[in-house]
């Protein structure tokens, strides 16, 4: 649908990049809610709430970003998280089974294997779209979790896991920062370097932009896809770890619907479902924005549907408004040039 004449005129100044736009929005959202709720909506409270909104969906979005950059999509992540969590809970079996860390290792392995299966299907059947493949594996993986766990919930994790990791925090400069938040923040610098500064990262963007041309240029596209799907599976399992530590128990329905949240965050952060675009910094900022917005709405309106409605609006507007602005700009530039011609 992108016409042949792509306007190259852009938003002026610092709002041009999605990252800056997000940063400005975060500040606006913060001050708006803070003025409404000066007591409960504070930086300290927000930091604390980041556990709820930023960590598990965040890890999924980290994995999803890579898949999106490659121009694919994976809607089975939440099911992978569920299956991995199930396997962990069942093998640990409230302390009766394997040692806890072994179970967690197994969990990561399950994430890896699920990702591998997705990757294999996607690379072996180029005719099929990842969306449809992962739609099927989504049902399949969660179905397996259902077979294993049936109607039970499993849990009773060691207390360091559900108390210290799930709800614990570290004092940094006099502020309580949740342990989980530190974990996910630690991932971002490395991820930034990988995606934006290394050769494989560059090739991922290439493959997402034009897979045929990239292949002709010696990019091993199948291998990249494989990497992305496996990484995504492992990240889903990691998200599962943090989610389990918060809920303290696992049911087969755990994390249902998280895939769409992860996709939404990645898109908000500048990724595109058509591939070749995405930003790690943008992703981080989008996570922060989501946290600030969702928490504020939750406190102010306390209504699930209003919350979703606002997220939906935000998602569309953040893409739509710059587009409209661009169109307006390039129209105006051309009109000015035309005017100059007709005068001369």
């Amino acid at each position: 649908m992108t016409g042949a004449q792509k306007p190259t005129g852009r938003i002026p100044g610092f709002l041009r990049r999605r990252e800056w736009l997000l940063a400005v929005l975060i500040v606006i959202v913060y001050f708006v809610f803070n003025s409404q709720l000066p007591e409960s909506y504070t930086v300290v409270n927000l930091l604390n709430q980041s556990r709820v909104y930023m960590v598990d969906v965040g890890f999924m979005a980290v994995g999803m970003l890579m898949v999106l950059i490659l121009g694919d999509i994976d809607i089975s992540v939440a099911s992978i998280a569920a299956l991995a969590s199930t396997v962990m809970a069942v093998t640990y079996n409230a302390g009766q089974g394997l040692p806890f860390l072994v179970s967690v290792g197994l969990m990561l392995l399950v994430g890896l294997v699920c990702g591998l299966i997705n990757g294999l299907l996607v690379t072996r059947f180029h005719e099929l779209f990842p969306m449809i493949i992962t739609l099927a594996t989504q049902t399949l993986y969660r179905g397996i979790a259902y077979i294993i766990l049936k109607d039970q919930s499993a849990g009773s994790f060691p207390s360091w896991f559900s108390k210290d990791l799930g709800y614990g925090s570290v004092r940094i400069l006099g502020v309580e920062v949740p342990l989980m938040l530190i974990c996910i923040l630690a991932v971002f610098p490395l991820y930034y370097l990988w995606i934006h500064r290394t050769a494989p990262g560059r090739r991922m963007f290439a493959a997402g932009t034009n897979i045929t041309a990239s292949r002709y240029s010696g990019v091993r596209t199948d291998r990249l896809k494989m990497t992305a799907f496996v990484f995504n599976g492992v990240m889903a399992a990691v998200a599962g770890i943090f989610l389990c530590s918060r809920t303290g128990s696992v049911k087969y329905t755990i994390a249902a619907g998280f895939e769409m949240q992860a996709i939404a965050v990645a898109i908000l952060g500048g990724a595109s479902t058509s591939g070749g675009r995405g930003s790690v910094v943008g992703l981080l900022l989008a996570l922060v924005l989501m946290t600030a917005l969702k928490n504020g709405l939750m406190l102010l309106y306390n209504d699930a549907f209003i919350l979703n409605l606002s997220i939906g609006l935000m998602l569309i507007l953040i893409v739509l408004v710059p587009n409209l602005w661009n169109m307006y700009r390039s129209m105006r530039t051309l009109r000015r040039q035309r005017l100059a011609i007709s005068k001369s």
Partner: protein
Amino acid sequence: MTQQAHSTRTLGRETVAPVLQVEHISKLFPGIKALDDVHFDLRPGEIHALVGENGAGKSTLIKVLTGVHQPDGGRILMDGKPVVMTDPLVARRHGIAAIYQHLAAYPHLSVAENIFMCNEQRQGKGPFISWRTTHRRAEELLRSLGSTISPGELMGALSVAQQQIAEIAKALSQEARVLIMDEPTAALSRRESEELYNIVRRLRDQGTAIILISHRLEDTFTLADRVSVLRDGRSIGTWQVEEVTADTLVSHMVGRSIDQYYPNKSSQVGEELLRVEGLSRTGFFGDISFSLHAGEILGLTGLVGAGRTEVVEALCGVTCPDTGQIYLKGHPVTIHSPHDALKQGISLLPEDRQKQGLLLPWSIQHNITLLRLDQHLKGGLLSYPSECKVGEEYVRLLSIKAQTPQEPVESLSGGNQQKVVIAKLLTADARILIMDEPTKGVDVGSKAAIYQIMVDLAAQGYGILMVSSEMPEVLNLCDRALVMRSGRISAMLRRQEFTPEKLLSAALPLSAERKGEEVLHG
């Protein structure tokens, strides 16, 4: 416009009013003036060639004429009356049909439907499309072009050249008063070109006015009545074809003269680099055997759809051959992917630059460096300055017409895009270069530059396999030429045996050989 443009040849056409006139046309793209006060006129029953360097603005002018782009100044007149081409359908209603430089095909639809898209064959006056009529008329059109393509075939299943033929059929189907062809022969071999020439001449004699854009000077000289030159978006002049020679035309286009078009190839043919034995792939080609030596330029020619592209793609690991063996310097190798091929020292310049060669939204320099990112690592991380340096270097070396190397390639003209692909290929540092139609859509000046590069590389001991449909290219550049006919090698000729007739007769299908001979001499 020079006054002499209006002086005329004997037919008395000067009294004929032009069908189409373009006055003071300007077109801006953000940051660039693609057309600047251009004048142009077209009379009924003439073939008017439009020539110029890559990026001169030819395609842009065409798009302005057909309403794809809106001009920023000036006006268009048809039959002396000003018209506004608000969109391509308006242009079509005025009787203008066009074949664009970059394929405008619908790969998922049948050939017949492609031909009649927006010109649907309906049942009587009703709103419903009649598929029977559509297919029948498509078949007639294709046969008149000497093509055997079945109208029911999916467009996407055809090769680039076959699609080009379908595009031509599409333009012809509109029975337009003005027919515009932007590089119609770029992907065609001699034989298809001849068929096209015949049809174009017939249309001209029926009174159709034709604009022809081609980087093959021979097209201009064999077909055109008049020729107009564009340079940097400005009209340079219009001449009767008899009034100009190739050299003067080139100097009008480039602004300087080019003394040597085909460089002298003096390098010695050395050791064997590549040998192929019994390569075949079901349905595409069979039993292909040949060898390529250091310092050699080996031509691979044949008719459209003969399978040349398929062969080179199999060599480069894009597709997998079913049987056969490839030897590099005598050692058997297996190549599963283009990555393997590059590792083994084989690099490919693909046929379709837009789909296979370029990342259109990316900058020139990032396109060029993609092949060898490892050369731009500093401490494991990519170094931007290093990429810039290489970008600038190649923009200069190949005189790519761009403001900066950071410009996205999608805003470059067709020929300049081709140069970016070539630049990328040159970074590969592979001993074996396979080039599929390397000069497709490239202007004369740059063509000469590309030939020079090829010859220089050969002199440095590279082996070059060049797929080409342009006879002169093969005749003047190659040490040896392979000719393919429906998936098999039909002849291997040495330089001293080269004649156009031999090449053509090896390429033509056995039954059609006689007919082809007539075309050539008729």
